[in-house]
């Protein structure tokens, strides 16, 4: 336990990096999800095909492969990326694919007669989306999106493999350093602590997601019906 206390500052900095990566990723994921989600319900066939290809591609390749591909592939295109940048992009691509499915489910949960009556009032398509569909889609989207955030927090651990010094990586550094300096491995203690921290964060987010879902159902709303986000590592 003394080991954890001695390293509390570095552990906290790792946790901060994890949260920062997860929150920035969530912001990017939200933008990508809304854009791809809108394409997936667009009137134009080509737009729906683009959305389907994006979603299926990034949901069907392992996130780790995706991350390594972005990290090592970007320099070949003349875009050298920092470990953080590569992690952010690959997590966004993966999260965006899962988020787009949630957005699509949320939009589909809005009854069709809502759009039809807005059309009959002479509103433009973007006005119908902004004032009628989006506000009604947000509630069913919120619970699964909170769940996606929990998945993103878990997925940030993969960023350690391209060199981001986030919480899990810091744990690894403490284990390696202590093993070298003191001749015995504190792996069980350190990784056990890391496990508990991730468990607490993600179970709180999952509980929040369930609570939002229950509240919504009590109010007669419908939760976006989507497949569970795939985390293929």
């Amino acid at each position, binding site marked *: 336990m003394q080991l954890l206390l001695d390293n509390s500052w570095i552990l906290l900095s790792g946790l901060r990096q994890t949260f920062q990566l997860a929150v920035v990723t969530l912001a990017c994921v939200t933008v990508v999800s809304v854009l791809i989600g809108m394409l997936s319900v667009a009137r134009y066939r080509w737009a729906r095909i683009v959305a389907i290809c994006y979603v299926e591609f990034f949901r069907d390749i392992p996130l780790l492969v995706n991350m390594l591909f972005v990290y090592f592939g970007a320099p070949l295109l003349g875009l050298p990326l920092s470990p953080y940048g590569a992690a952010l992009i690959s997590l966004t691509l993966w999260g965006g694919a899962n988020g787009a499915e949630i957005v699509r489910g949320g939009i589909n949960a809005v009854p069709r007669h809502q759009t*039809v*009556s807005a*059309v*009959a*009032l*002479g*509103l433009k398509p973007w006005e119908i989306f902004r*004032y*009628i569909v989006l506000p*009604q889609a947000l509630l069913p989207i919120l619970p699964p999106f909170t769940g996606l955030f929990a998945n993103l927090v878990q997925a940030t651990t993969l960023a350690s493999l391209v060199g981001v010094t986030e919480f899990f990586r810091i744990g690894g550094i403490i284990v390696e350093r202590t093993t070298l300096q003191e001749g015995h491995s504190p792996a069980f203690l350190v990784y056990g602590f890391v496990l508990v921290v991730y468990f607490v964060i993600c179970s709180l987010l999952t509980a929040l997601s369930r609570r939002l879902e229950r509240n919504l159902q009590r109010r007669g709303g419908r939760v976006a019906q989507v497949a569970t986000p795939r985390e293929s590592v």
Partner: protein
Amino acid sequence: MSEAPVIRVRGLVKTFQGVRALDGVDFEVAHGEVVVVIGQSGSGKSTLIRCLNGLVEPDAGEVLVGGEAVDTHSQADWRRLRQRIGMVFQDYALFPHLTVTRNITLAPVRTGRATQAEAEELARQLLERVRLPEKAAAYPAELSGGQQQRVAIARALAMRPDAMLFDEPTSALDPETIQEVLDLMRELARDGMTMVIVSHEMGFAREVADRVVFIDRGRVVETGTPDAIFRNAREARTRDFLAKIL
């Protein structure tokens, strides 16, 4: 020269998956006229009324609004014209996340037909007219079916339309609330509103319609005054239909 019909369609054809919902329909509504469209379920009544404001795009035929030909494939053209033709649906289709007032003011403000203040004043007047002034701040879920339908009528009226389309406006209502909606529609008819009503309420049709149109298998079989249709229908198909429901 006589005034152009508010809405006129010629040779309207619409096919859904090989089934002809409309098969060369000619139809027109004069200014201030109340036309009730009757017919069996699946006869093409709702398809016809939805073709009149572009919610259904006809495969062929011509639509004229106020004498102006509509490009039936142009959504921009339809959007402009929809502001002149109000529509009330069977399932009310109020926006559940908006208050009654916001339901009424959204379209006039967004389409530039009124400022927010003007639209709110208009909403207040319309809620008086539909006898729901106390529900201005309520959400649709707090209203009965009949009240929701009256708000839906107020919402359509807020666009100050030249004509109103009603697609089976009482079909989804409880029997006790049907009358309040019919009373409101009677008032609108008395005030000279041009109306096209798809309805199964034959008593109402007989009372308020200037003209009744009977549709069967996507074709206008017979059209005439309520007396002519309900008492002296010329066509056997009309008589058969009326015999079943009266």
